[in-house]
């Protein structure tokens, strides 16, 4: 059962610039608690201890890709239920469909707008909670 309050977000992206600006957007403008990871492996390590409400996952990363990380998260009992939102520069309909079929609750397009990013995540979250 998903907790209906969104507070903790684990953000995974190999680009340090993006991690910084997302942290600023989500912490200062969105009021969330953020933990950032630079790789999929790091995310798998952090997720059980940080216990995020949602994981914001970049699709194209060196080593483990976003989909690889999602599969690994789903395979672990303590992280299997954590909802995942993908972030990707590919936003063609069939690609979004493929990502949601993997089990993501939503997809955010890159480049994102730091001013509206929190709102986008809240919208996806609200839709997810209602389901």
């Amino acid at each position, binding site marked *: 059962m998903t907790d209906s309050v969104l507070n903790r977000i684990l953000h995974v992206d190999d680009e340090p610039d993006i991690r910084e600006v997302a942290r*600023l957007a989500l912490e200062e403008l969105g009021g969330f608690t953020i933990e950032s990871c630079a790789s999929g492996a790091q995310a798998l390590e952090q997720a059980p201890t940080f216990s995020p409400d949602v994981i914001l996952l970049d699709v194209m990363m060196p080593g483990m890709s976003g989909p690889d990380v999602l599969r690994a998260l789903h395979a672990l009992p303590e992280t299997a239920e954590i909802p995942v939102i993908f972030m990707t520069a590919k936003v063609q309909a069939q690609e979004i469909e493929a990502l949601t079929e993997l089990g993501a609750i939503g997809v955010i397009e890159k480049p994102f707008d730091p*001013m509206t990013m929190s709102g986008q995540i809240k919208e996806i979250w609200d839709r997810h909670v209602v389901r």
Partner: protein
Amino acid sequence: MLFGKSQSTAEKLRALGAAYAASLPGKLQELETLARPLSSGGPFEEVQESLEAVRIVAHKIAGTAGTFGYQSLTDHARAIEKSLKLAIEAEQPLTAEQTAAIGLQIDALKNLSAAKPARGAHADALYEDTVAKAQPTGSVVLLAPSGGATELLVRQIEDAGYGVNWISGHADEVDGVVAGRARAILVHAALADGFKICRALNEVFRKEFRTSVPIIFLSDDGDFRARLRAVRSGATAFVGAPPQASAVVRKIEELSASMVFAPYRILIVEDDDMLALQCASAFEGPGYATRIVKEPDELLDRLQTFDTELIVMDLSVAGTSGLDLAKVVWQHDEFRDIAILFLSPGPEFNIEVLKIGVPDEFFVPRPIDIAALRKAAVRYLADLRSGRRSSNFIDLFRHLDRVAEATTSKQTPRRKGDGRGSVAPGPDATPQWPLKVLVVDDDRHLVDAMAINLSAHGIEVLKAYSGEHGFRVAWEEHPDVIITDYEMPDGSGDYLVGRLNAADETREIPVIVLTAHTLDGRKDYALEREFVGRLGAVSYLAKPISLDALVAEVGRIVPLPSTGSP
């Protein structure tokens, strides 16, 4: 604490943007280095690794740059990524032409990255929004030198209930947004170049910001010469010998009561949030009223409810194009007087718009130079209000209307469909006989051959041998279908399709495009997108054409008695 948390966030965003800007040359250098082996001309296996590496770096830039205000970099990087993705999927090395195109894209990235992201990027937008909202409505701007006398004057004006934005330096420090919202601007003669500043402010506020914010000149002298200089500098009023706060406040109240406020009304059609903000930031201040339309479907409703004088239209809008949206506007007589400034991502986007007669001055390049956008808009709007000109398209429409009036339409135009080749003759599309098909090609033999075949099916064939000629015949005869070569030597096939699409009377006539630009005579997606998607043709046929296929294609659009329904 005037701005609070938002300002500090804005400052941090600005700092992150600056750090990203500083890192860009390194990223682009990496991209250029990785791309170098692509020009080797070797087989796919040899360059595959480089293709992948360049694609990943381009993907990263595409996904990041726009977040920091470099939307154009994102666009160019996406184009690179796309070319490489196609090559990788096809397992083909790049052609020399493709490699050169990628080189040009990288050059463009380097040039664009050298420019500071346009004002109005997220941080700036947030900052300006905060400044504008935080400013007390009853404020004045005071340009006066530092010193005890000025401090006293500031306190006394504040005591009278006005916020004072005191600038002791140069006029460049005046924030247009703040000053444009002020009750008055006070300029002290003791400031170096006080008279010049007064004149410059007058110029800016009257002409550029479209406000009638009074400019009050203050001077320690009260003689005739000082007053005269103040008047010549464009000041609205003079308080001198020396300026007493009570007299200044009285003058502010007196003048601000008669302020005229007739803002220019500008509609911004932009689906990209950041670009929309950039555009809107060009029109900050009380001289402008702006509305943003992000969803193309909302355009007409917004035009109805917002008494628009000028539309700023991005030529690149997701799912459609700025030109298509402009055409939607032009279809409505009541909106034809509204001028449109086109935001152009590149010269290639302008071609179709130029073809229908829109002058160069109505294009503003992206990335947006805020000052240039405002200047282009204000120049046009000022002329429009003063009656010196009408809309940028009105002459074009008058011309087309004259031609339309002179043409006796013999048939009800057939609907062209949605521009995706899905023309299905509905119950109201019953053709009137004989059917008329216009064939346009510079190859007269081919025209004759097509004519013979179409005539054999009972079709009346009209012939033309150039785009200009074809357009004239289309206007006069209003055929049921037009078949035109696209690549005529003088480029007039392209011209013809543009003209047909632009004119009300010919827009609905289904067009079949003939092209020799196909791969081994096969259809391909890029051409489909170009001719059917972008140009709005109902279909295209690859040359050399099969005359039977041509007749079948016409029959698909309009039922032929000899071929039956399609």
